């Protein structure tokens, strides 16, 4: 069953890939009828495979989580070299199957939505194939039973992300964004790979079961790396976290995610909101038995997470592209998840991951529905007043935003609340840092969410006549998945809060997450002052109120603010100038260096002194030597005479 859940999407994707080639042939033979049939076939097959996978995943979930079976499946040996040995495996504990279920369910909804969203596109089979392939890699990632299979999924989703961001390959901006995403992720992978090597160095294994069981024993071990002796688990955890930062777009390595919005919107929803970008969070939770023994690593995770949460929230407040607002919101929410992990509240981080998957996918798909209605317009300054024209989308966006802002009883309320409470409950300096930044970010989150809603749906329409004439509610095939996700955004939180972080948490997670007895953050949340518990909700409502004030009741206010704080505004609008900075200190120098090394290093130095230089020298000498062959007999006779004289003298001296 587990195998079916993971490999059905792969099969679907391969079939869709073959159909894509057939469809390409149909385009060339201008057989529109045949192309249509092929498109439909690819949609049915990939959606069918994905839905079946979701059903299988739910069955596995019931078997593992409800009935308490161990669902681990070993497929076959992957690598066996010396003491390094690992297999292709599917791990069957709560954390893995929970993720498998979430991924298959959200992915199948997005598959169905794509039927409608991509209906005017020329390469439907290719798109569906990529989506399914992505789902397969994501499932391999979350069901991994060793670090290398995790890395396999990790790189695989990176590849699919690259392919899907660059799906419209005619657009230079899409190509650039795709390469940027892949390369920035590879920078993170640099740390991830070194982390795996260090792990093997310490444990002589990279299989979860082995390293988890040895973690305690090695918790005080040190390791000599990079000419210094460091606490071994801290080294491993920090290196691996660097990888997580790349994939989950944390501060410093976040630059690829906003650009990734070049891809079609279902991609943004699936990959860049619900699943792939949460892989870093999943990884840290998965490796909680290692992270627990390194306070330094946990502190770093908290610091980065909290800083990212506030950074992205500030930027999100001034963006005008509807998808970019949601993208920065995603970065910000990932920050929340990380600082929850950092204060040892892994279950809270995972809880937010799951609820976020539903409401953020909902928001993205809702935005997609808006864009679809607006004939591919993404700039909110050219929208407005749409609520009467697309009421279903409007309501769904409200649900998603309420969940995102953390308003009771929507899902986000429960998960964000527990995260902020645990940050306080950590009773550490860094916990306080995370709490206050988190609270501020929560305020901003609510603010930009309603800024988005008001700019898009309310006020006077700022679109041109032709666009406005074409505005239409999305077809049922798009609305239906949105409704499913909205149900998730409504009920997942309230229904499952007791299992994730409440009284049933032990039976639910079993041994898949590990927290040291001394890390009592989750227990401490029961003894919080009442104002700490209420504050997240209060700032959420405050943010909404401010948005109404600024964009509904006093629309001249934003303009005045921008004029008053020109510099701050530009700083935020330009996303803290990260792109410009990186371009100056990394991208340009690398190209410059490459050219320089090629022309000067290889050309002038190595070839000039080496082969070409030697050849020139030989030529020069040869010309000299040739000049001596004058052809005059007396020259030769003289040379002979001198030679004979020399040798005779030599022998006489030797003899004596």
């Amino acid at each position: 069953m587990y195998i079916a859940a993971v490999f059905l999407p792969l099969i679907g994707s391969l079939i869709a890939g073959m159909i894509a080639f057939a469809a390409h042939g149909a385009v060339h033979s201008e057989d529109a009828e045949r192309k249509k049939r092929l498109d439909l076939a690819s949609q049915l097959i990939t959606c069918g495979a994905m839905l079946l996978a979701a059903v299988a995943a739910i069955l596995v979930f019931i078997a593992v989580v409800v009935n308490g079976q161990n669902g681990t499946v070993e497929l076959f040996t992957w690598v066996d070299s010396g003491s390094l040995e690992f297999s292709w495996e599917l791990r069957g504990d709560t954390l893995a199957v929970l993720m498998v279920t979430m991924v298959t369910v959200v992915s199948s909804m997005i598959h169905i939505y794509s039927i409608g969203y991509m209906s005017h596109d020329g390469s439907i089979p290719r798109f569906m194939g990529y989506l399914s392939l992505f789902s397969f890699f994501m499932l391999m990632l979350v069901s991994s039973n060793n670090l290398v299979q995790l890395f396999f999924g990790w790189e695989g989703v990176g590849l699919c992300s690259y392919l899907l961001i660059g799906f419209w390959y005619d657009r230079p901006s899409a190509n650039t964004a795709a390469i940027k995403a892949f390369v920035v992720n590879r920078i993170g992978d640099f740390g991830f790979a070194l982390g795996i090597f260090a792990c093997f160095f310490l444990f002589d294994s990279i299989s979860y079961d082995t390293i988890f069981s040895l973690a305690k024993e090695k918790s005080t071990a040190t390791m000599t790396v990079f000419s210094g002796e460091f606490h071994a688990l801290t080294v491993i955890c920090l290196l691996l976290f660097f990888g997580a930062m790349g994939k989950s777009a944390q501060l410093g390595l976040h630059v690829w995610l906003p650009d990734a919005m070049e891809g079609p919107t279902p991609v943004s929803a699936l990959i860049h909101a619900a699943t792939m970008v949460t892989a870093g969070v999943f990884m840290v939770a998965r490796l909680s038995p290692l992270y627990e023994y390194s306070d330094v690593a946990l502190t770093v995770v908290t610091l980065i997470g909290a800083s990212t949460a506030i950074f992205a929230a500030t930027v999100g407040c001034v963006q005008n592209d509807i998808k970019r607002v949601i993208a920065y919101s995603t970065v910000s929410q990932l920050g929340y998840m990380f600082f929850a992990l950092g204060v040892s509240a892994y279950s809270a981080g995972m809880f937010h991951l799951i609820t976020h998957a539903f409401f953020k996918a909902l928001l993205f798909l809702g935005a997609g529905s808006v864009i679809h209605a607006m004939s591919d317009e993404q700039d909110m300054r050219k929208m407005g007043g749409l609520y009467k024209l697309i009421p279903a989308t409007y309501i769904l966006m409200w649900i998603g935003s309420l969940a995102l802002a953390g308003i009771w009883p929507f899902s986000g309320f429960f998960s964000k609340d527990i995260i902020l409470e645990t940050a306080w409950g950590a009773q550490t300096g860094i916990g306080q840092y995370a709490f206050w930044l988190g609270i501020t970010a929560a305020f901003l989150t609510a603010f930009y969410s309603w800024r988005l809603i008001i700019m898009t749906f309310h006020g006077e329409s700022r679109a041109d006549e032709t666009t406005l004439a074409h505005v239409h509610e999305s077809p049922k095939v798009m609305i239906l998945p949105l409704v499913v996700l909205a149900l998730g955004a409504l009920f997942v939180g309230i229904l499952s809060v007791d299992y994730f972080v409440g009284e049933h948490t032990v039976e639910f997670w079993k041994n898949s997450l590990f927290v040291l007895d001394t890390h009592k953050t989750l227990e401490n949340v029961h003894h919080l002052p009442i104002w700490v518990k209420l504050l997240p909700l209060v700032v959420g409502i405050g943010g909404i109120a401010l948005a109404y004030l600024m964009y509904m009741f006093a629309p001249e206010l934003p303009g005045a603010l921008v004029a008053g704080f020109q510099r701050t505004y530009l700083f935020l609008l330009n996303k803290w100038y990260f792109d410009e900075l990186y371009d100056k200190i990394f991208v340009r120098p690398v190209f410059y260096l490459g050219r320089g090394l090629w022309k000067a290093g290889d050309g002038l130095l190595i070839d000039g002194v080496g082969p070409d230089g030697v050849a020139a020298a030989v030529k020069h000498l040869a010309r000299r030597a040739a000049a001596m062959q004058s052809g005059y007999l007396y020259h030769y006779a003289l040379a002979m005479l001198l030679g004979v004289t020399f040798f005779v003298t030599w022998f006489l001296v030797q003899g004596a």
Partner: protein
Amino acid sequence: MDNMPWLSIITFAPLVGVFFILLIRDDDKEIVARNARWVALWISLITFFVSLGIWINFDNSTANFQFVEKSVWMPGLNIAYHMGVDGISMFFVILSTILTVLCIGASWITITDRVKEYMISFLVLETLMVGMFSALDLVLFYIFFEGVLIPMFIIIGVWGGARRNYAAYKLFLYTLAGSVLMLLAILTMMFQAGTAEIPKLLTHNFPATLQPWLWLAFFASFAVKMPMWPVHTWLPDAHVEAPTAGSVILAGVLLKFGGYGFLRFSLPMFPLASADFTPLIYTLSIIAVIYTSLVALAQEDMKKLIAYSSVAHMGFVTIGTFAANTQGIEGAIIQMLSHGVVSAALFLIVGVVYDRIHSRDIEAYSGLVHRMPKYALIFMIFMMASVGLPGTSGFVGEFLILVGTFKTNTWVAAFATTGIILGAAYMLYLYRRVIFGELTKENLKSILDLNRREVAIFAPLLLVVFVMGIYPSLFLDAMHASVENLVERYHSALAAAQHISVVAK
């Protein structure tokens, strides 16, 4: 059946083909060419299938040489015709035979001039390559090792591009400089050990004072072949000027001579010197990985870009080899095999569009995906194998090498790992410029996608890339015994030397 001289059959079967091709006489040049192609294809196919038999009948449990043949050749000098393979060399034999088949297939219609001579060159080349990997006598090894230069020189010099003479001479001079020193070392070894038999030399302990000189002499030759920085500059020129199939063999097999040499000679025969020179190797290799990756980023010629990427990938091989542990060495072998397949495929990929448009400039292309989706897919897969995506052969090699290296030197592993970032950058940048974008250039608007012959050439390479990536045990299992033996010998030699120096104090 068991007494058949299988290795000799594989080695010399291509020469039989040469003999048949020489017999072809006809006034019609077309008929001559066609017959020469078919004879070459059949012979190379037969050779390939026979060589697969070696793998099937290979005994994974022993580190000894297998399929050994030996007959006295020059009794006075103790030189014998001595052949055999172990877990280290066996796959290289198969790599040589399969790539020869593909090269002949790839040249099917592109070579129209002197087809007979062309096919003869490739078959002779195959004999020499297979002989090189299975020779168990120093002198025999040297003959094959150097002999390879001759057909390669001819292939580049006759069927090459505009600057073929420069490239051919550069290749020849670079490699010859190294080989002279190696010949001296070989003679010294024969006099010192009193034998030219490689299996005996493998257990002979050369004096500690002599080892550095012998090591350096071999290094001079292997470093050029590898090629290591800074003696790599012949490679881009040779690749650019060589015909497609020439590049395929050059990148696929000839670059493995150096790596194979390090594993067969330097490491086991001169362990003390190897240990002493490891920092040198590490330094040069790291420079190779970073430097050539940066240079690759700036290239405007597709073949040059892939040539530079080869230097970077070979840098990984030398690092893994001198990490001298099981993962490092097995990784190095896998990396060589993988690079043999992947770079061969990448050169074939360049060849496909070169055949159609006659340009290697990246600038000359854009938006090929519109007309050539199959091509785009295959290019994508091999690109991903080249950047080491897990699930492809490239990953297994790089991963094992780096895991092994991290145990011996974390700095080296860290610097080498930057290669995964730069590698992704230059390959994706290349792919984007060639495949993506709009199709605006007039001469590309009617370009045709891969035909059946071309798909048939790529199919076996794709198969190897995935099998080696997903189930590498198929290859690793055959290596274990030989590699373990090598690692053990190397470390016991070092330990013994340590012991002596301690006792002396």
